[in-house]
């Protein structure tokens, strides 16, 4: 197999303007419920932007600067928005049966994003350097030690800082990017068939079964 040809074939569609900037969308994919995924992604953008500002100024910036305190507040409310919209988005896609039509991996990547988002946010709480950080660190260590994850030392603020500002956001970014890519490539799941379509499908299947018997 020619690797270059393979990547060119795949990337041609994946990186095309039509994939990422569609002019037309399916008629069923409009309205507030279809904005929840975008609001989740937008919250992540605000989180990354405010997080970069804070990382550039060090973990204790908020304790000495009113601007730092304000930016930490933006980061705090953005993470609340992130999970709020993400959970609503999860509920919408669940009740839509959004894994239909070969979209199982899209669902898997979305739920994986939620799974990784939890320790990402948790390590952020450890960065506050207040009582909440102390308490969460000593409480979480027992569970992590019990699970054989003592390497992830929640009592080591240096390690947790690296985890919070680089490692976990990077993993989360990749998962979210892959999730969105699959949505763009596979498309938003269409509705379940309307009643008449459903009935027609049932009749056809029954007819096939009858003919086979």
């Amino acid at each position, binding site marked *: 197999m020619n690797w270059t040809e393979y990547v060119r074939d795949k990337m041609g569609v994946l990186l095309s303007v039509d994939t990422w900037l569609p002019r*037309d969308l*399916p008629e069923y994919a409009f309205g507030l419920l279809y904005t929840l995924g975008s609001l989740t992604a937008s919250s992540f953008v605000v989180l990354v932007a405010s997080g970069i500002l804070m990382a550039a100024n060090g973990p204790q910036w908020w304790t000495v600067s009113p601007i730092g305190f304000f930016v930490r507040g933006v980061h705090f409310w953005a993470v609340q928005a992130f999970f709020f919209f993400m959970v609503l988005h999860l509920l919408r896609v669940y009740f839509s049966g959004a*894994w239909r039509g070969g979209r199982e991996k899209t669902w898997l990547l979305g739920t994986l994003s939620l799974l990784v988002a*939890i320790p990402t946010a948790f390590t952020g709480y450890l960065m506050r350097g207040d009582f909440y950080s*102390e308490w969460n660190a000593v409480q979480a260590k027992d*569970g992590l*030690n019990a699970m054989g994850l003592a390497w992830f030392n929640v009592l*080591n603020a240096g390690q947790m800082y690296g985890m919070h500002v680089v490692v976990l956001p990077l993993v989360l970014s990749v998962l979210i990017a892959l999730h969105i890519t699959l949505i763009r490539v596979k498309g938003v799941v*269409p509705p379940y068939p309307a009643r008449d379509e459903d009935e027609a499908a049932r009749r056809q299947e029954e007819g096939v079964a009858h003919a086979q018997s």
Partner: protein
Amino acid sequence: MHNPKQDLTHRYKYVRADFLKHLTGTTVVVAVLAVGLSLWFREPVRPALHIRTVATTTPLLFEKVAIGDLTGTGIIATYGPPYNDAVGHVQSPLQKLVGVIHPVNPAQDFILKPLGMVAVLNPQVASAMTVWQAASVGQREIWAANYARALAHARVVGKSVAVPAGAYGPVAPMMAGLLRLGQSGLMTGALNRSPADYQFDNQNALLFLQGAPLHQAAKKLELLGNQWGIIHEENAPYPGPWWMTIVTAIYQIPYIAHASGGDAVALSLGMLLFIALMVGPWVPFINEVPRRLRVYRLIWRDYYDRYEHPDGPPPPSAPPDDGASSP
């Protein structure tokens, strides 16, 4: 029987949209929301519990923690991996398998090393330390155990702890010196000492505080595990990390709350639930639950109104791709 992979409509049309404006709009909405909430409500800050605070406001508690570390009966001394070879808090074979990767010897690291620093500045502590070092291990254990028992009858006098007269050897001046170190505010620095002297790791200071001092403070704030502590946040209007509600709920089950391996069970159960959520699409029946629940009729209400209404528009021709939104 419906096949979940094919159980979707094929009649719909594409309509013109401005995708870029949509994404810009949602980002602006969230940014304005986060900035506005930060300006209006600010954010939660709950002051940290310092060793100095514990030593100053509750000297007796400080000494009880310290003597537990010195005698080897404290929580960390009896914990086990990853801190030492004890077995007191070993909850699973995995914990044992990982081994001692963050070694801690509470008597040395929490008490004797900091006291060694105090001894440089305080001749009384220096003399006491000399006696301690010269004594046999058995003699040290007797002195420390006597002092630990005496603390049950001790009282606080000013900023000091007064114990009844007894055979404590040098332990009483050592504990008094350590208490003064705690009250000075220097003990946190004495505990958190990385080889490079750049202090990124606060493990030992947190482990020193992690028993009664932090638990007593947390209980007042209703942050204990059996108080739904993980998801609690400061007073209103601040929300807590509510996204950990499921794991917190598992900790409220009495069997798990009181089990010796409760943390391992709770986290394993939480992870199993999450895996069930992730693999749902591949599990027969589970992957059909949304179709049976029919909540989707509300989600696509407009769509069904349009195509199921007797006077609705004629069905469009099937799109070229099965649901793909790329036109």
